[in-house]
């Protein structure tokens, strides 16, 4: 029984104390049996406050600690480490979640939230009073990582993991690597093209023996947990032999009678059913789009490399961690949104970037020469209603960069920017300055009075009440209207169902904590990076990829994982060996054994995973689970009911 308990109640800035009266909570629990120290703290996780706890524990010879703060998913390990630094066993620490499950959940009811917080802290005290010290033990961790997504973030992460000596399986759903970056021409700030960047990364991936790349590959199933994930991967064939005759293959592509919208150019051009997106694209073998192929046989007649006998393959891999970098999709405007889909010269920013790349001497779209271009900002971002309330962050910089590029590449271009305020943060501000110097015109409105795109006498016009000139109505006749579209999460229903990574209000994957644990998810062993966790530019994606690679590797680098000793234990006096517990154990961790001459159940400690399935089936209540003992649970129930 612990009798010298320290209790710390965190304000979490105002995240908790704005809704929970933390002083009242402290006063309500400071005289609970065994409580020796009770304090409130602005940020319990702050270094100085952690040190204060260590000092309190040592000075007062505390035998156990409770911190009431955020979710244990965020800071359980932090405060267990505080307990250990002060010389306590970390299992003599109990965490009370009064942020996610109290202050935030009940921000509509402050007195109710305070009452709930009091009960939760009391129940944590009641639990820690009977908590027992335990020792951790280890399991093997497979030293390999699966990286899902072969875009910039995925390839960068794979290379980093490979450099650390970690075998990597890189899984890309499409038949070509590079994601959206492959579609961009010159990039800010390096002036390298997207294709060059992808090529550089692909060459590095290909040169690494410990990276196995699968394209056209999708995860079909996932089992296991951290240190021991098993993934089943479906690999769709390219229907073209690896060593192919390039000349004949090119003739076969030309002979293909199928024309479908080319996704690489965002539908502004057509492609064949046999295709590659650009010369030298990686992997360098084209692919047959089997969904659109009519099997007319024309390509087979020309090129011996076509091979329709190739079959879908299934592969099972065993890894210790999974890194998810599945990227984003550009927002597609709704029919009629700023004239999209109704006026033929209204396009999106990604389409515009492809047009700049595809045109050579003069800028022409749908047979018409382009001189005046209007850019409508924040389309699909910062929307007052719907899912896309967030700022996509990259688009201001991207469109200004494109506007500068288009002026550099083609003559007589006039750029008109219809903005809602420019967000070219950091070094990107230099680009904005360049654009102003080049004579681009900037107009601005608020969200409640957006610009209007309309057609008048066969001309497309954009009208705005410009707040920079006292809401004066301005209109521009535009040859081309570019909708500056933001990022949305990539469609990944199957993967979302399999991995169950929580998603936030914006529908992007959620990290545990934006600042403190920015690439970890609540699913142990699964990390996220790049634009799948929120809008990012290429630099930011690469940074987060390095972070996720390091985190994933840190789980498994030692080849073993330290696991919590939360395992079943048998009360030898009560047990009569009926065998029911052994029947329900999914790991065969329980066998018949002997205590003297008496037959009893015996737990094989390293095999027991601590699921507790054996607990409720015992007719004599002879099994308990460490950290979830009858005394602990019943004490908590009593305190919560009190």
């Amino acid at each position: 029984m612990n009798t010298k308990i320290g209790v710390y109640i965190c304000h979490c800035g105002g995240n908790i104390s704005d809704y929970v009266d933390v002083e009242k909570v402290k006063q309500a629990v400071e005289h609970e049996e065994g409580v020796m120290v009770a304090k409130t703290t602005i940020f319990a996780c702050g270094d100085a406050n952690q040190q204060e706890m260590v000092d309190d524990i040592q000075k007062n010879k505390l035998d156990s600690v409770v911190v009431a703060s955020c979710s244990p998913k965020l800071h359980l390990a932090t405060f267990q480490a505080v307990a250990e630094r002060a010389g306590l066993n970390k299992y003599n620490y109990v965490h009370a979640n009064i942020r996610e499950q109290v202050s935030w959940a009940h921000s509509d009811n402050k007195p109710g939230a305070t009452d709930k917080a009091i009960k939760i802290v009391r129940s944590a005290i009641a639990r820690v009073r009977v908590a027992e010290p335990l020792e951790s033990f280890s399991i093997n961790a497979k030293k390999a990582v699966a990286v899902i997504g072969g875009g910039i973030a995925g390839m960068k992460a794979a290379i980093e993991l490979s450099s650390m000596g970690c075998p990597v399986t890189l899984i890309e759903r499409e038949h070509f690597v590079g994601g959206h970056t492959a579609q961009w021409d010159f990039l800010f700030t390096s002036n390298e093209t997207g294709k060059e960047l992808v090529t550089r990364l692909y060459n590095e991936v290909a040169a690494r023996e410990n990276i196995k790349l699968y394209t056209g590959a999708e995860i079909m199933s996932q089992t296991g947990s951290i240190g021991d994930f098993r993934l089943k991967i479906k690999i769709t064939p390219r229907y073209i032999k690896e060593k192919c005759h390039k000349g004949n293959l090119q003739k076969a592509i030309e002979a293909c009678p199928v024309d479908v919208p080319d996704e690489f150019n965002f539908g502004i051009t057509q492609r064949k059913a046999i295709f590659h997106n650009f010369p030298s694209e990686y992997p360098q073998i084209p692919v047959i789009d089997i969904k659109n192929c009519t099997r007319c046989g024309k390509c087979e007649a020309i090129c011996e490399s076509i091979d329709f006998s190739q079959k879908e393959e299934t592969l099972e891999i065993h890894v210790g961690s999974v890194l998810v970098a599945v990227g984003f999709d550009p927002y597609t405007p709704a029919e009629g949104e700023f004239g999209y889909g109704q006026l033929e010269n209204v396009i999106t920013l990604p389409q515009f970037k492809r047009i700049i790349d595809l045109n050579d001497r003069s800028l022409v779209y749908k047979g018409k020469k382009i001189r005046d271009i209007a850019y409508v900002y924040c389309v699909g971002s910062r929307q007052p209603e719907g899912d896309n309330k967030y700022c996509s962050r990259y688009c201001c910089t991207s469109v200004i960069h494109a506007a500068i590029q288009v002026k550099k590449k083609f003559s007589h271009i006039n750029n008109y920017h219809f903005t809602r305020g420019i967000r070219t943060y950091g070094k990107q501000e230099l680009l904005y300055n360049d654009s102003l110097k080049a004579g681009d015109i900037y107009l601005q409105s608020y969200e409640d009075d957006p610009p209007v795109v309309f057609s008048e006498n066969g001309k497309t016009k954009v009208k705005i009440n410009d707040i920079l000139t006292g809401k004066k109505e301005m209109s521009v006749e535009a040859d081309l209207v570019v909708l500056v579209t933001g990022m949305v999460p990539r469609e990944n229903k199957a993967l979302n169902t399999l991995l169950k990574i929580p998603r936030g209000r914006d529908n992007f994957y959620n990290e545990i904590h934006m600042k403190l644990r920015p690439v970890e998810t609540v699913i142990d062993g699964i990390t996220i990076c790049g634009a799948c966790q929120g809008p990012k530019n290429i630099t930011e994606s690469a940074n987060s990829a390095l972070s996720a690679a390091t985190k994933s590797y840190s789980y498994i680098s030692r080849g073993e994982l330290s696991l919590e000793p939360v395992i079943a234990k048998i009360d030898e006096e009560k047990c009569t060996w009926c065998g029911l517990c052994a029947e329900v154990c999914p790991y065969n961790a329980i066998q018949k054994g002997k205590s003297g001459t008496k037959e009893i159940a015996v737990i094989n400690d390293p095999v027991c995973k601590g699921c507790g399935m054996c607990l409720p089936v015992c007719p004599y209540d002879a099994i308990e689970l460490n950290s979830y003992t009858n005394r602990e649970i019943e004490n908590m129930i009593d305190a919560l009911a009190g």
Partner: protein
Amino acid sequence: MPGISIKSARILVFSTEKISDPAIDMAGLLKLHYPPTVYTITVPCSSSIKPKWILRAYEKGFDGVFIAADGSDCPYGETCTEKTGKLVQRTHEIMKEKNIEPARLKMAAICSVCSESFVKQMKNFNEYLLKNIS
């Protein structure tokens, strides 16, 4: 202040560390409100809950007990659903013997992203308990 004067049933939730806890946390993050008299006790797996813990909750004054079950997502294996179902069935039988309305024990699968579903379950269960039990 909204919500204060509304009486709420006292509900004890047995939630699982890896699956339903993240959903309940995310409900808070998303400011999806539910009655503040809903309290959570975390267990590793929903099939590890002892019927005597559930019965103790009623004995101590809880109006309802909700098992936020792992369902098919259980990291400990696919037999979890069946085993949790059995322990609920067994507890229902004991409840009948003790003249405790079996509807006061409810179970539903709550996956790691099922925040809205959790909140809906809590609101509905609260309404049911207020109408029929409290």
